[in-house]
């Protein structure tokens, strides 16, 4: 019921000094049903972050509209949780205080809040780390805290901008499984931006490949790998020949786009 719908989204940035205009996004149209997992891929500068920021409510589109569950999106809200590339954790708070942040802002009763925090720390695998200061955590653990902090607020949509970009390969794979697990268990709508084609294939029921200048959705895929990832080990999926074929196709598509940018520049 609570679908995310984007209609004719346009975003044009104007450089205040030179007055030159950049069409970051042009005529974006899509809708995302509740519980869908969407990954977005595209060459650098094609407007992925801009799109995400608009859905989160940090930016207003120059034209077009977005709605979630029938309500127009006009600013940031608890319904749309956000996970940043680098945690954006509050380093002056402990792990549980970070997770607790949204609940405290809502003035949730203490006992109830504590139960929720503990539950989510368990789910993301951080039981026992509640009193650790966040600056003492590793990068992977910090992203787990960021996930828990977002999920404890029970948002309808979770937006992630390269959430695993700063992690090493092994931690990354573990986090990918975690995201799939969370997706299945919570049934949340998840929109995830990534630079890695493999990750986009693994973490997307649907996958948008975006193209730059102006930023638009170039091609859409429907993929079975996320569903499979819930039951099979991720490494096995990666060795699947179908997986390899799609990967090669998308890679050469993005390669061509990059060529075009370089040639045009």
């Amino acid at each position, binding site marked *: 019921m609570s679908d995310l719908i984007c209609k004719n989204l346009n975003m044009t940035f104007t450089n205040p000094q030179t007055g030159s205009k950049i069409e970051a996004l042009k005529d974006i149209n899509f809708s995302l049903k509740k519980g869908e997992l969407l990954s977005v891929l595209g060459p650098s500068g094609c407007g992925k972050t801009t799109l995400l920021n608009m859905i*989160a409510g940090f930016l207003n589109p120059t034209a077009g509209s977005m709605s979630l569950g029938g309500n127009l999106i006009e600013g940031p809200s*608890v319904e749309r949780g*956000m996970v940043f590339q680098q945690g*954006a954790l509050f380093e*002056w708070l402990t792990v549980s205080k970070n997770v607790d942040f949204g609940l405290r802002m809502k003035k949730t009763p203490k006992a109830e809040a504590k139960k929720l925090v503990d539950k989510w720390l368990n789910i993301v695998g951080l039981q026992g780390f509640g009193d650790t200061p966040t*600056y003492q955590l590793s990068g992977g653990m910090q992203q787990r805290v960021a996930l828990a902090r977002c999920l404890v607020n029970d948002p309808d949509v979770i937006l992630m901008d390269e959430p695993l970009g700063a992690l090493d390969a092994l931690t990354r794979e573990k986090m990918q499984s975690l995201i799939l697990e969370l997706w299945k268990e919570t049934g949340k709508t998840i929109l995830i931006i990534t630079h890695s084609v493999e990750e986009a294939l693994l973490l997307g029921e649907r996958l948008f490949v975006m193209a730059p200048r102006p930023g638009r959705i170039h091609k859409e895929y429907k993929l079975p790998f996320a569903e499979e990832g819930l039951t099979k080990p991720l490494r096995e999926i990666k060795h699947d020949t179908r997986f390899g074929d799609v990967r090669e196709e998308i890679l050469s598509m993005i390669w061509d786009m990059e060529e075009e940018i370089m040639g045009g520049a």
Partner: protein
Amino acid sequence: MLSWVSEERAFIAAVVIILLLLCFTISIFIGVKQTAFREKDEVFGDPERTLGGWYWTITGVSSVLLLWFYFSWGIGRAFFPEAGNEMCQIAKLETAIAPITATLPINTRYFKSTTLTRRNSEQLEILLSSMPTSIFTKIEQSELIEIIENSKAIIGVFSNQKNQSKESVAFLKKISSDIRKLSAELRLGFDGYLPTKEALAQPNWGTTYIEIPLLPITSKGVLFDSISNQASIITKTFLKTRNNSDAGDTLIESTKKKISLLKATNKSSVFDEDILIRRKAYVKAVERIFKRLDDGTIFPPKAFDGLNYAVTDLFTAIDETKGGLKLIDTLFVPGAGVIKSRTQCTEQGSGRWLPKPTDVIASFLKLANPNIEAGGGYKGSTLFWWKWLPIADLIGFIIPDKIIDLLPGEYGRHSDTGNFQSNYKDNLLALAQGDIYLGSIPMLDGHIWDSVFRVLVALILGIGLGVPLGIYMGVSRFFKSFFDPIIELYRPVPPLAWAPLILTIFGINDDGKIFLLFMVAFAIMVISARTGASGTQLSKIRASHSLGASNRQILRYVILPNALPEILTGIRISIGVCWGTLVAAEMLAGTTGIGFIENVARVVSNYELIWVTILIMGLLGLAFDIMMRRIINKTIPWRGKG
């Protein structure tokens, strides 16, 4: 106990110095060993190399203290407590014969007669060659030339052996033999000379305001003292000795007449004002040199040979009799040594302005004594103590009287019967003026507290107003642009440049100083809070928006803690700058505070007190800074790790 410590400070210093020497040598020994031990496994430039090394700290501190003891003559006084007194007796002797020494080539290169002859002859030549011929008649000119030639002739007469009076020859002979007797007496040694009871009862070196006891307390000192008494009698005779001769007297008389004649013509003749002034000036110059010659202080070249020999020998005798004192003087008493002025012996050299560590401590203990009647404290206030503060005073200080005036109703009037019944407004006024006794609370008191209190109040006001404004300036275009020019215009002015104005407006009491310090703290706090607030990462702010925080919650729970490191650093800087400004402001005006003490000490040249206040200021400043560093490390362990 305290008075024992005070009187025995030389002994205590000796113990401390020995301990310091031990610390110094042992720590160097450990340091060298440790360095050799670590040499193998450390790379040059490794920052770890600078960690630890307490032994070098001890070496540094003890060498500074030893240097202090040395240059303040502390070592000399500690180990040779009688040396100062003995040097004082020798200084007495040297002062007693100083007028004789001054005529001889002992501390100078020439006999005084030679110097006088040379200088006067040269000046006479100059006068002769620069005579202004246009303003004197031919006759006057020849008169002037004759006066100058006469003056030269007088020098010649005095310098001639044949003209020296028999009387003066005999006098000089007698003086020389008397001085030789003194030398002989010195060489006999000081056995049998005993100090008087009165002398032994004198306070020790440096324990009272009289620096060095004046009466001799050792046999050697008694000897020098008695010789110096005889020497001053000899000197008196010497000062009366004149080189008079008949030839000289006639020349002097005739020249005197010529000069007065010339002066008389200056009076009678009618001259131009300008020319008159020039004539008078020239005649006066000639007369001045003549007057230097007519008192018989120039002697023939060989006249002082005997005296010179006798005095030189006396100094040799002094040196011989000094014995070990000479070594002490050169090794442990840097500077000119002890000097005898008219009524007392004083230390000349670094010991004069660099008080001995023990004296500084004694001075501090006296200052720190909370019992003012017993001479403690300074200028009617303790250094750091407590007192009962009436609560009414506090209320009277906080509530302005004017507020009561604004209340509805009128103040009471006297009734027909002449009674006065106070109404509620009168009662409130009494409260606001601090006239109602409400009990007392214990409160800190004293010069240090006064200084600290001023800084504290100014800091609290500066933080309380500066941090919120700074944070708003960090997030709001209006606040930033509106307040930026105001603060940036007054901030670069050195705080002390504001002092004269602010002390005039607010008065020299606490208000003015607190306001001055408040200005300092406020600007620093605004700028640091603003830097901290505007440095908040955008992603953190966006995250908190997505987590449902309101704007106020974001200010309180995200921007404020994010700015905390900068705010605490700002507080640390504020404390330092406020402390420095306060002390200077207290030196400008005021009646209490550390800076006030130093200012008074400066006026009365009390170097010990000046050093005490400097040390108190430095130590308090250091204590504040260490405290702030602790607080910073405790409250923001995440600093630099976010």
